[in-house]
């Protein structure tokens, strides 16, 4: 099944200088979508303002410890629909590096295109801070008590 990410933080939230990089993150590129997803996730689950998250800073700087980082890989797997190395965020410890690695090594197109559409859909949603991004969306909340593989 697809976990639709109800990112209410469009990628414009990423500060400009993060995007002026030799890696050339193109507007709406898969890497940018993943970055956006990670920024949203971290801002929700570490109670941070998304604007303060710099994609080139090590994730530990934001209070994400090693075991949390492993857990976050699980969420990424759910969203992208593929199995990832559990130490992904240990080996690529910034949002920028991990997104770049994912785009290079995995087929992330399906998830990335769905996040783009959900961004549009959810842009008007004003969700409370405490609600976890993916769990309350049509993701697993909607799956509850339904044993199906879709």
């Amino acid at each position, binding site marked *: *099944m697809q976990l639709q990410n109800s990112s209410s933080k469009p990628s414009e939230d990423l500060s400009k200088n993060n995007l002026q990089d030799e890696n050339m993150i193109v507007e709406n590129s898969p890497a940018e979508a993943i970055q956006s997803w990670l920024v949203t996730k971290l801002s*929700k*689950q*570490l*109670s941070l303002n998304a604007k303060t998250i710099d994609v080139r800073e*090590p994730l*530990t700087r934001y*209070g*994400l*410890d*090693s*075991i*949390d*980082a*492993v*857990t*976050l*890989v*699980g*969420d990424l*797997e*759910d969203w992208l629909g593929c*199995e990832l190395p*559990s*130490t992904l965020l*240990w*080996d690529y*410890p910034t949002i920028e590096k991990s997104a770049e690695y994912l785009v290079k090594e995995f087929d992330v197109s399906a998830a990335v295109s769905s996040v783009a559409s959900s961004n549009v859909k959810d842009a008007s949603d004003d969700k409370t801070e*405490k*609600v*976890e991004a993916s*769990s*309350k969306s049509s993701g*697993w*909340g909607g*799956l*509850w*008590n*339904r*044993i*199906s*593989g879709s």
Partner: protein
Amino acid sequence: MHQLKQYWVAEALEKDLGDPTQPESVMSFKSVMELDEREEFPEKDVEWLYNWNLHHYHIPVEYGGELKSYEEFVAFVRVLSRRDLTTSITFSTLFWSGLVWMAGTHEQKQKLAKFIKDKHGAMCLAYSERAHGSDLVASDVQATKVPGGYLLNGEKWPINRATISGISVVLAKTDDSGGARSLSLFVVDKSEIDPAGYSNLPKIKTLGIRGSDMSGIRFDNCFVPEEMRLGQEGAGLELGLKGFHLTRTLCAAFSLGSADTALRTVLKFSLGRKLYGKTVFDIPHPRTTLVDAFLDILVCDCVTIAGARSFHVAPEQSSVSSIFVKYFVPVTVEKLVQNLSVILGARFYLREGHDEGIFQKVVRDNAIISVFDGSTVVNLHALILQLRQMAKYRAKRNAATYEGLRSRLETRFSLEAPLPPCERAKFELFSRGCDDVLQGLEISLEHLYDLKTDSSVDAEVLQKLITLTSAVLEELDAQDEFLASSGFEFGHDQSPELFELAKKYCTLHAAAACVHMWIYNRKVLGDFFAKGEWLAICLNRLLMTFRPSSGIIPSIYIENVAQELLKLDRENKMFSIVPLQLAQAPSPEEKTHAASELQLQA
């Protein structure tokens, strides 16, 4: 011998050690108490175990050892632990060879096997530091790269067997920038480094396991060659955590050995002591306490055996299977020991009398197990982080998932089913939402319904099992529902409510493990086990931790458990779902023979 082969090693060891209540036995209560009083390292007992070749069971078969299954392993550690946790915990630092079997090069593995076998070698695990206990990433011990190897600097403390062991497995910082890849593991053989480069710290005085070598090790510009590094540079934390998966599960064997002795000692007292014209055992409250302790042991048994077998069947789930065992068993046994102490009254506090005062040693020794290799809080926190994913995965189960679940459950729980070799390389830091035991509960519930047509099963008991198992499932569904609708944040400030939730998950897991164990072994583990009354009571007791008592259990069920407890005690068998024959007190002729044997060995 028991019909299950994986228990033969434990039975043979048990027989050769002899009845611990007989002073002349190896590791008798008398001798372990004397050592404890003197705070003396159990050197002779450890040497006896090497001479018995117990160390071979820590080395995988492919490296010339006898380690075939962790179920077998847990069984023999339990046999040691019922006599003396000091020796058991001391000898069992050989656990840590598991890190080398997991991640070592072929040469490192061969070398370690040789060290253990030929030199009767042992190792210690040097992770902890004075300033950092559970926070491994914060380690201060440095390993600075130099040509051909590293310079180690810093101190590890408190470390079990730091002084009396030939190898220290040291976690050290190889990258100053910090983070999860900043640590590396070194298998430091003291005989191959400059003695000027390290020193051991003094023995630490402890409440229990007083004879153990609880000390520390300090490195000062200590050169260690490159080939002593285990795995890649930066793999230290990953390997360290995976190593814990193994040892956390094995720690349950320490607890189960303690539990057996605590129960046996108090039962003996309560059968021998008369009050108000009857034995203590015949007074309802102490009788119930003793029966409850026995039931707790049966539950812990199911959890531990399932955990040990899961390394072979579902190594990818090692991160959660180990938490379920490590959280549940030690705290359950701590409580059980405390409950039993009430029956002894003031005597529980005495360092003499009633089997040499062994109960009081159990109280002190047993108290440290829940802290080993990741404390209760560390384990629950790690589980909290995986709960959401387990709930998600559970909601997504489909026909294909069920097929895999069904087959894994059968191999994991059928004690007669041969286990595949343990593929340690498949251990994972998180289980991707998988937890066969709880996610397969519906499968066992289905089995229960199928048994309605089976005339060998008591219909009344079966109906109760169906009712109780359905209640466990309801609780699980409600818990998942709650998880789905609650927020989540990372960090170290998880709410106390989430810790309670994680505890409840462990309790439900224990209930599910008991149900599976019964389903797959009804015809294997004897009449008492097969009847299932014990299971109904256990499920009811586990549910009672978060539901009011349902009054579903007839008193005759409890009486039947009491009778089984007495029978096992009379026949001198382990209090367990696999009631091994324990060592019998020898006849006078045997005693003479045994004494001359011992002299020969000495």
